């Protein structure tokens, strides 16, 4: 029987903390991009 490496979450969950900065930045950029788009939309519809 084979096990996936995810089997022992407790052994490697700390590694997820290394992904944190990337996730935070991606979320921030996605939010900014969504906000920019939202700002543009009303301008487009007014023309």
């Amino acid at each position: 029987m084979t096990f996936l490496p995810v089997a022992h979450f407790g052994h490697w969950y700390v590694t997820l903390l290394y992904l944190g900065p990337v996730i935070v930045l991606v979320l921030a950029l996605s939010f900014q991009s969504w906000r920019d788009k939202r700002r543009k939309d009303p301008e487009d519809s007014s023309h």
Partner: protein
Amino acid sequence: VSRRLTAAGTIVLAAALALPATASAHGLVGKQDLPIPRWLFAWAASLVLVISFVGLAVLWPKPRLENAREKRVLRLPAQLEVPAGLIGIAIFVIVVYAGFAGVQTSTANLTPTVVYVIFWVGIPVLSCIFGDVFRPFNPWLAVGRGSGWLVKRLGAGADPIPYPTWLGRWPAAFGILAFAWVELAYTNKADPSTLSIMILAYAAAQIVGMSVYGTDAWSRYGDAFGVYFGLFARLSPLHWERGELRRRPFLAGAPRLDPVPGTVALLCTMIGTTSFDGFSQGPLWTGTNGLGIQLQHRFLDLGFNAETALEIAFTIGLIGVVLVVSGIYRLGVIGMQSVGENHTATELGRRFVHSLIPIALAYVIAHYCSLLLYQGQAIGYLISDPLGNGSNIFGTANQTIDYSIITATGVWYVQVVALVLGHACGLALAHDRALVIYRSPRAATRSQYWMLVVMIGFTSLGLWLLSAANS
């Protein structure tokens, strides 16, 4: 585009983190004593990169590196080429001879240490400080030039074929991948005589390449090691060219990189192979249920012997990590494309590829600094006893490796600083190029948002790999 990018990014980064785990501390001695958890260094490094990014956006409104001027420091006599080439050939002969004639123990024979430590790690470090120091001593280039001169004098031989544009740096990319395969996947990698055979085969291939396409074109695009060291030399403030030594701002050689086909593949291979070296030493690869162990079992079940199963598993892992690194870079490029101005992803990928050079160097330093600092000392006694037969040519055969030269904690700090500086330099190069490509500084900064994600992703990946290796 943004949604697709976010989804794709999540998948690639999740894959990257699901795979990895560690990297490496070749010969690391002692235990690290750190004031904060290692993962916090990744957050601190990311913060430094974000601050650097903001600093670049505010304080760097015009390109500075793209057209930086060089100043001649001194002129070198052309006659120096010959003795330099002869020295390179002499070292080459000694290394190959030691591999064949010496004891077949990797630590007692000169050849493995010269190849894996001095050549593979030492020359990149020297190149980024002193410029392309390998080129004048490149033994196969010296042989190619010498035989070319002789053929010309005798009035024999045909003119070389023009180097095909489509071939670009692909031969170099495959050459570096092949060397990394030998280093990381081949089970007989440390056998001195096998190494000597491979060195001779590589040199022969280079001489064939130079005789077909000419020494200059082949050495600049096809010679894997010549190209590899030449890329790092582009970061140096010193530039050796046409019998002159010139100085230029640090990093200013990188924007002059001609992004011919294969350049992106070469740099992604350089970063990916170093990453896999770390990954393959960590618990997610080597653990009881690690990916590497599972792959080996699969191939054992298919009837392969243990050695071949191991090599296949490592080959798959090596190529997989190179593809993950390429995917991360591609994501940054697709993100840049979303800024508009009708640039294709392929064009942007090539035009920003030079920003990966300092990252590749950072990975080499971070990954191999302990190897260089500890095992590099072995050269002191190996030059006195290159064959391992008890000779003492220079009286240094009894020297030993001083492991107190740097502590494990010191190595960790060197690794962190190398990664942060390398990625900050990558950001600066990408920012400088964006100012040339995009119409306004604002668009240039916006285009670099996703490159910032890429840089932080590579930094976190590097620290994660290293921390797993040290754990």
